[in-house]
């Protein structure tokens, strides 16, 4: 009898209860929680982007060149920061790029637009997911840092980790733009087209010749890397404010293009 009553009550329409600000905030938090959960449960995404940066750092910074790096604190810092920035790029570019494109293809973004999802909750959730992934990457990098002969205080390590977590923003915006212009099938290729050249041409993993420096300056990875050097009080190329401005401009520029396109094409 009680089950019948419960079912009858559950088919009554909701009263005129307003959506409180607290429930709106909760909706953003729930969206971020499930976006992160589903990406953590996707081995093809979580595996490479959580494990690869630290695995490559251990391979190059410890196993292959550990002896040389041990003698040169600057090289130890360069290697650590380079692979850290590599870890920042992936979740944003691929996490956003591929998932937005696939969700557009599958009609999920359309369904969420029809539902009363709070404005931008889906995109904000993806951004927070990318930042969570970067936080995990930075925790693994910090744990591996002593093996890479990095000498850095815990406070500075925390500072550079925080910077890199915020550094997910420009790459997320770039990924989001890819997701709005490419289909689900084309998005991984387009993301790789952005990701792979940026790894090699930004100078984050090995120094570029002076003649190619201008190419590095086109890359947000270079600016984040230089900002990390500045954050640690090490010598950086160019003014930190300029690096920060470039990263902010990339975030706002690609973000605006993506939001505009999403509003037009869904």
């Amino acid at each position, binding site marked *: 009898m009680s089950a019948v009553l419960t079912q009858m009550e559950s088919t009554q329409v909701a009263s005129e209860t307003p959506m409180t600000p607290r429930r709106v905030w909760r909706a953003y938090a729930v969206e971020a929680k499930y976006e992160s959960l589903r990406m953590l449960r996707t081995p093809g995404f979580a595996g490479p982007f959580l494990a690869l940066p630290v695995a490559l750092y251990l391979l190059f910074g410890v196993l292959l060149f550990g002896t040389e790096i041990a003698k040169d604190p600057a090289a130890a810092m360069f290697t650590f920061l380079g692979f850290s920035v590599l870890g920042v790029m992936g979740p944003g570019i691929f996490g956003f790029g591929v998932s937005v494109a696939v969700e557009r293809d599958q009609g999920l973004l359309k369904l969420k637009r029809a539902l009363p999802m*709070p404005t931008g909750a889906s995109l904000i959730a993806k951004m927070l997911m990318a930042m969570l992934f970067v936080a995990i990457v930075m925790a693994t990098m910090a744990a591996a840092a002593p093996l890479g002969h990095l000498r850095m205080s815990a406070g500075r390590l925390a500072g550079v980790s925080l910077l890199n977590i915020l550094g997910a923003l420009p790459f997320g915006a770039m990924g989001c733009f890819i997701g709005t212009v490419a289909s689900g099938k084309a998005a991984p290729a387009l993301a790789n087209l952005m990701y792979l050249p940026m790894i090699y041409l930004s100078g984050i993993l090995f120094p570029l010749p002076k003649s190619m420096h201008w190419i590095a300056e086109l890359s947000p990875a270079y600016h984040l890397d230089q900002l990390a050097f500045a954050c640690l009080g090490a010598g950086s190329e160019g003014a930190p404010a300029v690096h920060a401005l470039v990263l902010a401009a990339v975030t706002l520029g690609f973000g605006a293009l993506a939001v505009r396109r999403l509003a037009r094409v869904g």
Partner: protein
Amino acid sequence: MSQSSLAELSGVTKRYGNVVALDGLDLEVRRGELFAVLGPNGAGKTTAISLLLGLQRPDRGSARLFGQSPHLVEPRRHVGVMMQEATLAAELRVREHVALVASYYPDPLTPDEALALTGTAALGNRPYGKLSTGQKRQAQFALALVGRPRLLFLDEPTVGLDVQAREIVWAALRRLVDGGCSIVLTTHYLEEAEALADRVAVLARGRLIASGTVSEMRALVVRKRITCRTALRVDDVSAWPDVQTVTRDQHGMHITASNTENVVRRLLAADEDLQDLEVERAGLAEAFTELTQEATQ
């Protein structure tokens, strides 16, 4: 917009390039009704629903949801949606999907209540990607009603469901209407509209060609069907006035006629041994076919 109207399209025209999807369409969803929107493929049903949900903007005319623009989030907080083409994240469990959608609403059911109502409690812990097509539809139905909406949009809700699951959906829909929910249903299953709908709208080529109760729709089609066992010849009966078609099979002779009374009188007069006489009114399916054929000719 009247007090009883929850959603409304007024004089709406929508084009995709050279194709006119909707052509001056007026449509109104009233409080407490189950409203079925029918029409052949390309009739404009999906476009009409998309406009009511704020997914697109009309080229001309207006769309209103609870008296407001459907592009605002506020009126959509009274709406539940089930779309045919939406694919949910495979990695999340059904209960997690329901909890996520519940978070969008001010006063939702708990996920377990929504699952119980839709007969999907056993699916709660299963990843969405592992469900069969029918189970996915059932899970999406739970998502549609978890917000305790005042207006529910359902696009082909029972496609891919077995008979038992379809009965559960139908029963839930009837209870929701009893609980004060209004429902807009698009379906290819005319028996579904016939069994559930208070009111039906038939679209063809982007225009409303008929709307009313199921009985009113049937009445629009004057044609009725006569079945009997008789020794009369098909060719002879075909030549009678008011007779439209005549066929014969193992069950006897089947006649469709615009004035059945005249034809029955003549049948009885012409064959004293006539047996098993039955006269049926056209069903919704026949009405639908005739109306849409007329509109597209």
